[in-house]
C-alpha cells in the first residue's frame, strides 16, 4: 500500500464578489505519494471545500489547463508529484495573469495574442483538393516538430519577467507558434505574421532571460524559437536596407 502523508495545502483564494484582495487558506490533506498536486486540489474540492475554483481537464499534461504557481514555480498541477515536495505546498494562480477567482486566471490576453500570429497553415498557393495533399519529408517535419508540442498552458508567460513588466509583450508561446508555422515547408504566411511578430511588442521585447524554456512542461524551448526569430528578422532588415535588389 502507498504511504499516506498529511500535507498542508496553502491555496490563494479570491472571491470577486466578496473579497477586495486575495488571501491564503490552508487545508490539511491526506495525500498518497503517487498523487499530483491536482489530486490534492480535487480532494479539497470533493471533501473539504466545494467552493474552491480551479481549471483542469485531462489529468495527463495534454490539455494545458491546470497551470498554477506551485511553491512559486509555474507548474502543471497534474505533473507536479506530491513526493517532490515537503509537507507544505503553496498553490497560487499563474503569475502575471489577473485572477478571475481562486486559481482561475483571466486568459483572454493570451488567447488574443495567440490568434494574432495566425497559428494555422497559410498555403503558399491555392491548390484544389483534387490536386492531392501537401507532401512533407521527415526532415522538413523535424524542422518544426518540437514547436507543435505546445499545449498552451501559459507556464512560459508566468515565468517570463518581461511579460510581467510589459503586458503588451506578445510572449513566448505565441511567437513560438508563429515560428512553428513559418518553419513549415507547406506554409507561405510568414510575411503576414511578421507584422505582429517583428513589432516592438513582438520578439524584440524579449531579452532572453530563458525562464520560459526552463519551465515548459513540453520541452518546446520557446526561448530558442524566439532567438531564431530574432536572427531571421535581423537578416530581413539587412536584406531590405543593404540589398534591396534581393527578393525575399
Amino acid at each position: 500500500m502507498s504511504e499516506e502523508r498529511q500535507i498542508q495545502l496553502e491555496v490563494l483564494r479570491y472571491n470577486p464578489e466578496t473579497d477586495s484582495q486575495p488571501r491564503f487558506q490552508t487545508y490539511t490533506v491526506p495525500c498518497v505519494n503517487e498523487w499530483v498536486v491536482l489530486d490534492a486540489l480535487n480532494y479539497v474540492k470533493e471533501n473539504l471545500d466545494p467552493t474552491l475554483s480551479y481549471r483542469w481537464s485531462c489529468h495527463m499534461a495534454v490539455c494545458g489547463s491546470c497551470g498554477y504557481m506551485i511553491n512559486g514555480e509555474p507548474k502543471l498541477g497534474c505533473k507536479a508529484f506530491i513526493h517532490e515536495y515537503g509537507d507544505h505546498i503553496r498553490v497560487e494562480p499563474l503569475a502575471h495573469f489577473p485572477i478571475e477567482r481562486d486559481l482561475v486566471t483571466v486568459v483572454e490576453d493570451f488567447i488574443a495574442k495567440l490568434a494574432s500570429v495566425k497559428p494555422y497553415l497559410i498555403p503558399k498557393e491555392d491548390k484544389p483538393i483534387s490536386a492531392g495533399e501537401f507532401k512533407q519529408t521527415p526532415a522538413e517535419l523535424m524542422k518544426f516538430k518540437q514547436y507543435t508540442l505546445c499545449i498552451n498552458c501559459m507556464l512560459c508567460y508566468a515565468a517570463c519577467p518581461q511579460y510581467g513588466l510589459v503586458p503588451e509583450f506578445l510572449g513566448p508561446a505565441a511567437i513560438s507558434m508563429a515560428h512553428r508555422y513559418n518553419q513549415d515547408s507547406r506554409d507561405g504566411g510568414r510575411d503576414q505574421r511578421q507584422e505582429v511578430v517583428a513589432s516592438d511588442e513582438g520578439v524584440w521585447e524579449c531579452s532572453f532571460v530563458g525562464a520560459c524554456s526552463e519551465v515548459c512542461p513540453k520541452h518546446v524551448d520557446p526561448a530558442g524559437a524566439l532567438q531564431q526569430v530574432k536572427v531571421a528578422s535581423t537578416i530581413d532588415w539587412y536584406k531590405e536596407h543593404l540589398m534591396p535588389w534581393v527578393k525575399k
Partner: protein
Amino acid sequence: MSRKPYIREISKTRWFLRQPRYMRYMAREVTCIFIFAYTFLLIVALARLSQGPDAFQEFLNALRSPLGVLFNLAVLIAAVYHSMSWFNVTPQAMPIQQGEEFVPGSIIVGAHYGAWAVISLIILFLGV
C-alpha cells in the same frame, strides 16, 4: 455575473529578486557594464597615445598599479562569465539540422569554446 479580476502588482525595481533564475539573468546583464568600462579604457588608451610617448607610458604605469591590475582582473572575470553564458545558449539560437537530426548542442557550444581558445592563442602569440 459581473467580473472583477484582481491584478497582482509587480515591483519594477525588485522583480529579479523573486527567482534565482532571474538573478542569474541579471548577473549576465550586469557583466556588460564591465565590458563597457573596458571599452572606455581602450578609448582612453588611444587618447593618451595621441598625446605622445610620455603620456602613454604614464597610462601604462597606471595600468600596472594594484588598482589597474584589480580592474583588469574584475573585467576579465566578468567578460569570461558573459561570454560563457552566451556560448552556452548558442544551440538554442542557432540549431543546426542535418537530415532528420539536429547536431548535438554540445558540439555547437564546443566549437565556440574551441574558436575562443584559438583566437586567444593567436592574440597571445601576436602580443609577445
